[in-house]
């Protein structure tokens, strides 16, 4: 019958009539709204209850940390409030507050081995973890995103060089690399920030390079190139905004990873000074109480509460990160959790 096909012919079916006439009903093809991608993502994020819950937890913990004790800058008080009932550094033993006192109305989380109020120490401790978490991630982004973008966009020997460095750094586990940096620099706040930045930028560089490689072949980028747009303006206008969503998700989740690393370094005695009310550092002193258990009683609160605050914060940041991912990519089935450091 195929030979006969050529002999059938239809006349009078005139598609132009459809295009030329006024629409005969109010129905249109348009289903989606005209809102921008970011706006749509925000709408979806707001509807995600666990993500909003996570965000509230983070905000609450940040507020508690900031308002725990007054902040002075060059002996001018910029933040006069004090939510924490006690000075986190005040040695209760000297005031007649006994060490290892269980939770009570006076001391919600009990006291530690030097009679310090644990509740005050825990909410104040958020300052260290949260600030290092956000600063280290911001710095890592600042290094990793440009390097990854250059590497992915230009390719060639630049790409080769940057990716070899990334490969080499990837040969070291997250924490071991951070420990190596601290072995060189010694311990301290900025030393820790620097160590976690050196370790952290790699994942963004890799991620954004991959995104750019896939975006680069898109038609609109080729079109922009064909129209003679300059490289820099192509990267800034077309590629980076499209590749940013997964980077934002990764960065959010990495705040959690960094906070866990700060706690681990603190616990190992390689974070801040021993007196600092940082969560991991507090826990490093409770290890002795677990092994010995003073007077037969177990001061469980010194272990439980600082640990729970870490869990709470990291869980909240993960909920927010997952929420952002779902907001940008509602159908997505891939977990970006495949990066390192998740098991600290």
């Amino acid at each position, binding site marked *: *019958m*195929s030979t006969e*096909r*050529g*002999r*059938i*012919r*239809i*006349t*009078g*079916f*005139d*598609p*132009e*009539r*459809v*295009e030329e006439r006024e*629409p*005969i*009903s109010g*129905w249109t*093809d348009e*289903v989606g709204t005209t809102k921008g991608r970011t706006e749509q993502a925000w709408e979806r994020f707001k509807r995600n209850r666990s993500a909003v819950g996570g965000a509230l937890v983070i905000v609450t913990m940040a507020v508690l940390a900031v308002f725990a004790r007054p902040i002075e800058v060059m002996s001018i008080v910029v933040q006069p409030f004090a939510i924490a009932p006690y000075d986190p550094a005040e040695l209760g033993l000297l005031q007649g507050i006994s060490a290892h006192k269980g939770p009570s109305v006076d001391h919600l989380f009990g006291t530690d081995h030097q009679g310090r109020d644990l509740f005050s120490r825990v909410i104040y401790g958020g300052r260290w973890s949260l600030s290092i978490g956000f600063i280290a991630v911001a710095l890592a982004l600042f290094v990793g995103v440009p390097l990854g973008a250059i590497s992915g966009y230009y390719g060639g020997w630049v790409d080769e060089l940057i990716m070899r460095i990334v490969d080499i750094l990837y040969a070291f586990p997250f924490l071991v690399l951070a420990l190596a940096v601290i072995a060189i620099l010694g311990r301290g706040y900025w030393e820790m920030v620097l160590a976690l930045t050196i370790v952290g930028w790699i994942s963004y560089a890799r991620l954004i390079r991959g995104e750019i490689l896939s975006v680069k072949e898109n038609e609109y980028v080729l079109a922009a190139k064909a129209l003679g747009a300059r490289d820099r303006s192509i990267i800034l206008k077309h590629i980076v905004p499209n590749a940013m969503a997964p980077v934002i998700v990764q960065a959010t989740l990495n705040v959690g990873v960094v906070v866990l690393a700060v706690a681990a370094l603190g616990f190992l005695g390689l974070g801040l000074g021993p007196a600092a009310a940082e969560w991991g550092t507090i826990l490093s002193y409770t290890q002795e109480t677990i092994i010995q258990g003073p007077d037969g009683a177990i001061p469980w609160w010194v272990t439980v509460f600082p640990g729970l605050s870490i869990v709470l914060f990291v869980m909240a940041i993960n909920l927010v990160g997952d929420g952002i991912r779902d907001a940008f990519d*509602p159908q997505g089935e891939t977990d970006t959790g495949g990066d390192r450091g998740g098991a600290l």
Partner: protein
Amino acid sequence: MALLEVEDLEVRFYTEDGVVNAVDGVSYRIERGEKFGVVGESGAGKSVTALSVMRLIDNPGQIEGGEIRFKGENLLDMDEEEIRSIRGSEIAMVFQDAQTALNPVYSVGEQIAEAIRLHLGYDDEAARDRTIEMLERVGIPDPADRYSDYPHQFSGGMQQRAVIAMALSCDPDLLICDEPTTALDVTIEAQILELLDELADEFGTAIQLITHDLGVVAETCDRVMVMYAGKPVEKAPVEDIYYDPKMPYTVGLMSSIPRIGDERDRLQTIPGTMPDLIQLPPGCSFHPRCPYAEEVCTQIEPPLVDPETGEPAEGVDAERGAACLAYTGDLQNELGYEVHVEGESHRSAVRDVEEITGGDTDV
């Protein structure tokens, strides 16, 4: 009793964006050994209909209503085990893209032999022998050597032949082919269609051929159902579809087939695209794309009726049916198209030449 009777099938998908009426009131039957074509653009509900017959609709899809009777038994009433004994053994399926339809990590032979062992109860060696025999039958050279090859070592056409061998390996009564040649070159397409045709005759297998290409249907099928937006819009024996199409959508599909010796500058296509199934146009779903649409088309949904008599033709047994208000007497003007065959003019509807004149001249 017909081999397969599908009656008033309804399938919905519950997605985040809304309920998709993927298949809405589809009825048809396939006789033993018959070749039945299902035609339509992508999204018309052809594949969903086919998967429903296999009971392979996944979440979030649900078969919401109707009956699918195979040899008189309703497949929708069967439990999982009963339906499994039919899948692959009595009803088999050939998929669109053989490359993705084959599991990359098992050899082609193993994937065919697996079904033979399962349904025919052969031991490993007998299943291997039958597999090699089937591979040979579908035209794969050196079948014994290619048995242990992996899918990526086969060319596209060879992969599709292997999938056909797999489908026919347990001698099914019904073979559902879902766009079996879409992913292939035109030359290979013809070979594969010929092979299907030949094997179906030899094995006495009925075929339900799903395609968007009316040309493919012409070469293979006895009867045809045209689907649009989840609904059947025309049913007819294959000659009638070509020589006497009744539904404007079918006419549109026909006029978009490229022809040898066509002197026009460009192909006529149907304007616009298939509507989103979540938000169908009111009345006749085709009205936004139909050159003959009138206001009434936006108000009344046309039933499937016999175009000669205007009697309802929704049922399983209806041979001829078209869903257009032209046949229910609701349309003011006539459908102004004309089918020409071999120079003779074959009038499908009285045409108001003055009102609608296509810019074309006859060949």
